[in-house]
């Protein structure tokens, strides 16, 4: 009945989400929030995969999205473990304090 | 298109109404059964045998002062109960109660809607349920609440794994994710049910155990164990918010038991085909129930029974009569069988609650990962192997 949704709107949405994720990663100082912005970026990417899967009528896009999810899960697990240990040793979650790797 | 909306709305009202009353009276049934297990009468002051007790509770909870502690993270504190109850109720929408029926000229399924990935939908919703509890625990800014929240969410996540593996096993047999088709594959005799297919009773047992853990029921209800964590994650909650957590718990219980019935016990299908008289079973049961209550009413053990039992007896007999009407039979019979099976499993929940002691937390988690998960995995492998070999 109503007008159908043009594909590019999905892409624009994922572009917005992507840049929001990047912004989050750059401007936020709390490690967990930065980590979450990465998840946001990955979600944006997934959306693009699914959109193009729809455009090409192939299931490959879905599989890629699936694998992205799996990898994101693994990454989250290890990342959060690292954040735990960081917090245990440094008592802080502010990324700017953790710059001992400087030259 | 508009008829679809109207029908859906009607169905929603019917299901919602039925569900809310069942929730309330399930609470009553539970208190009654546990009472009788513990050889005490249970609630019988408010209305005959405490039948109006749920009503009283609801009124109590609604009218209680709805205080919000100042040190609480307001937004999440209020969102948590809402999240819990919505997730619990959402999964009911997918569960089929009966086959296609003809009502006033419109054909419709005794089911709100059917998704061809219904099982996944329910799994998803149940995994979202965790947030209600976790956020409740955290946002109430109370050590006990936090610990309770953490523990219960950890428990739910851990048991979600064996639950989904246990569900996967029968799916392999019936080879569909849509709940309606699931039931259709278990049509016919008793042994067509998934429970008796191959050795699915193992996955049935795993499913039930995981279901207990998922809904934080007795052996696994450590988080709100009174003696340890005061009231667990809903310590800081009062009145309606507290009520919603309870409703969420019971709704989850109903969902899980419906899932058990659909996956293993053949949903609304009668144990033996109607041709062999499965249609008369409900009539017989209600007739017998009616006679017993009337006889009980005539020579009462307690003097007030004389006034209360006979009306119940009459009601039972009327119901038996209704089941005899062929027109309604096509709708009522499947509904009866579905409710009977779900009732049986619910009774199992309540029965277990009344008898088993509580797990300690590390035992609980150890059991999940060291026992239940491996067994569920093996069971899934075995089922897959069996299907590959025999089919």
């Amino acid at each position: 009945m109503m007008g159908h949704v043009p594909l590019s709107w999905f892409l624009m949405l994922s572009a917005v989400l992507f840049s929001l994720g990047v912004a989050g990663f750059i401007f936020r100082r709390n490690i967990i929030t930065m980590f979450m912005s990465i998840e946001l970026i990955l979600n944006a990417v997934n959306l693009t995969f699914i959109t193009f899967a729809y455009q090409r009528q192939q299931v490959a896009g879905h599989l890629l999205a699936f694998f992205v999810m799996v990898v994101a899960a693994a990454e989250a697990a290890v990342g959060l473990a690292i954040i735990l240990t960081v917090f245990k040793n440094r008592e802080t979650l502010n990324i700017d304090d953790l710059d001992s790797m400087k030259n | 298109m508009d008829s679809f909306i109207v029908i859906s709305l009607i169905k929603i009202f019917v299901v919602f109404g039925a569900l809310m009353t069942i929730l309330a009276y399930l609470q009553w049934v539970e208190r009654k059964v546990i009472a009788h297990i513990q050889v005490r009468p249970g609630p019988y002051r408010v209305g005959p045998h405490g039948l109006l007790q749920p009503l009283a509770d609801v009124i109590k909870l609604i009218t209680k002062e709805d205080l919000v502690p100042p040190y609480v993270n307001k937004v999440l504190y209020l969102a948590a109960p809402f999240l819990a109850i919505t997730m619990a109720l959402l999964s009911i929408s997918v569960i089929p109660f009966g086959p296609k029926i003809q009502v006033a000229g419109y054909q419709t399924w005794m089911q709100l809607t059917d998704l061809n990935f219904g099982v996944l939908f329910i799994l998803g919703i149940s995994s979202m349920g965790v947030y209600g509890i976790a956020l409740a625990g955290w946002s109430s800014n109370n050590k006990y609440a936090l610990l309770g929240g953490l523990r219960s969410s950890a428990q739910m996540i851990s048991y979600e794994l064996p639950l989904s593996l246990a569900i996967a096993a029968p799916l392999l047999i019936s080879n569909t994710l849509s709940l309606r088709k699931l039931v259709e594959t278990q049509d016919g005799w008793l042994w067509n049910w998934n429970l008796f297919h191959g050795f699915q009773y193992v996955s049935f047992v795993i499913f039930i155990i995981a279901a207990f853990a998922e809904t934080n029921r007795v052996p696994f209800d450590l988080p709100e164990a009174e003696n340890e964590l005061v009231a667990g994650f809903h310590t800081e909650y009062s009145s309606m918010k507290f009520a919603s957590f309870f409703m969420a718990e019971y709704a989850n219980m109903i969902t899980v038991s419906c899932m058990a019935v659909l996956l293993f016990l053949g949903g609304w299908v009668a144990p033996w085909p109607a041709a062999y008289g499965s249609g008369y079973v409900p009539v017989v049961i209600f007739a017998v129930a009616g006679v017993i209550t009337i006889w009980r009413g005539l020579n009462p053990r307690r003097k007030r029974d004389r006034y209360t039992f006979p009306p119940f007896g009459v009601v039972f007999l009327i119901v038996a009569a209704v089941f005899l009407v062929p027109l309604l039979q096509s709708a009522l019979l499947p509904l009866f069988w579905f409710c009977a099976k779900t009732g049986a499993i619910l009774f199992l929940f309540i029965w277990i609650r009344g008898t088993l002691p509580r797990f300690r937390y590390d035992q609980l988690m150890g059991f999940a990962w060291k026992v239940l998960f491996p067994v569920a995995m093996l069971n899934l492998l075995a089922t897959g192997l069996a299907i590959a070999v025999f089919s």
Partner: protein
Amino acid sequence: MQLWLIPILPLAGFLINGLFGRRFSKGLVNAFAIGSVVLAFLWVLKTLFGLGGLTAAYTEHYFTWIQSGALSVGCDFSVDRLTAVMLLVVTGIGSLIHIYAIGYMAHEGGYYRFFAYLNLFMFFMLTLVLAANYLVLFVGWEGVGLCSYLLIGFYFDKKIATDAGNKAFIVNRIGDFGFSLAMFLIFRQFGSFDFAHVFAQAPAAPVGLLTLIGILLMFGACGKSAQIPLYVWLPDAMAGPTPVSALIHAATMVTAGVYMTARSWVIYTHAPIAMDVIAYIGIATAFVAATIGLAQNDIKKVFAYSTVSQLGYMFVGVGCGAFSAGIYHLMTHAFFKALLFLGAGAVIHSLSGEQDMRQMGGLRAKIPWTFGVMLCASLAIAGFPFTSGFFSKDAILLAADHRAPWLYWVGVFTAGMTAFYVFRAFFMTFFGKYRGKEHPHESPPVMLIPLVILAGLSLVGGYLFKIPDFLRPVFPAVEAPEAFGPMAVASAAGLLGIALAYLMYVYRPGIPDSIASGAKGLYTLVYNKYFVDEIYDAAVVKPLVGGSRVVLWKGFDAGLIDGTVNGIGARAKGIGGVLRLAQSGNTRSYATWIAFGGVLVIFGMAAMIVLGGLR
């Protein structure tokens, strides 16, 4: 006929003396050294008589020395009449000088080393003469250069000697440079080095190329035979012992250039321009060397310049096409110049090392034999009628007259000058009062005998051995009529020179000083050898050394190479320094950089799409 035995004998002498000489007594060293050379001389006589008329070249091939692709060079020796003459001169004069050297070197240190070097020299000279192709000739050519360096620098403790040795070797090498270029051209053009093969194809080759080859060969000869541009090393070579000067810098080595030019007469006859070049260089060298010789006070320097001048004469002979006349003068010159040097050696020996003529005088009574011998030599070189010098010099002057009259008159004038400075030296040494402090004593017989023989040869040698007739089959005939007029004029010039010398140094000893003081500028110019050494030093050595230090070493090596290497290192450090700043340790900065990189990549793609129309 075992031609190879001729060079191998001196080589054996060299090896024995060289390796075991230290432990031999003087007598034993003499036995090996002189024995090997004399045996070689006897073997030469035997082979020449054995070969008979020798109208055609007799070649012997021993082994293929170089075989690489188109180039195949055999170690071959060949003998024809020209080689015969050279063999006789080299081995004959060589033996005499070896004998003389016994006496002369008796009191010097390194006795066995001297004779070993002399034998090595004889081996290389004989190889050069016997060579049947340019490459083996070049081996000999280099070998003699080496031995001249070793022998000049014999008194290695004196700096003058070693410097002179270096100078000689380097100047020779410059000459050899031209020689090698010529050889390359020959190979490129004719595809082989063998004389027979090259001279057979030479007439067909383009004249321009032949001229170029001729000039380059001439350049090599100038280096070796001390002609105009490259003669500077010969006067300094006198720093070596006198027998060396006699053998190498008078009789044999310096004549190698003339022999090589004569040997390649086919190339020159087909390249007239090259012939003229040789003639002009020859006459110029003769004239210039003679003028310098006038004003020298060191007796050996006088004879050194006279050698350069006489070589100039030989080249004039070759340049005018009279190859046989050139070789004829070569032989006679070998006789009297060796004698002159050995005589001077005897004089120096008797004065125990004194070489400055102003410290001599009146030795006529004290060393009468040397006086007699020196008289014969001086007469021969001055071209006194019927002496050997007279016949050979006239042959050349006749050819020069036939070629170009002015050439003849310059030649005659130079002949006059030659006579004058030889007799000037003669009179200053033997006439007047003795001005030195030493007690002159006569040389021992072992030195006098070779002198006497050489004196005999220089008087009658020219008449005895008629080289032009002997070499008729080898060279093209020269139709120079036996005109009496020019000969008379030449000999008259010679006598005039002698008379003048007698007048100025015996009759009126004051005249030379007055002339010297009169023409002050000219005298100093001539005395200082026209400052040629200084000019060369300034023009060539200084810029070369300075240039290589400033440009090559400082500029190129240090500046460019080290510069780039260190530069790159510094640049890398610089860039590293800059990049280091990016490692701020701040994760958010890194993230920004990553995002920035991403944006660039996407922008690149977008640009590509917009510009390239990529889908």
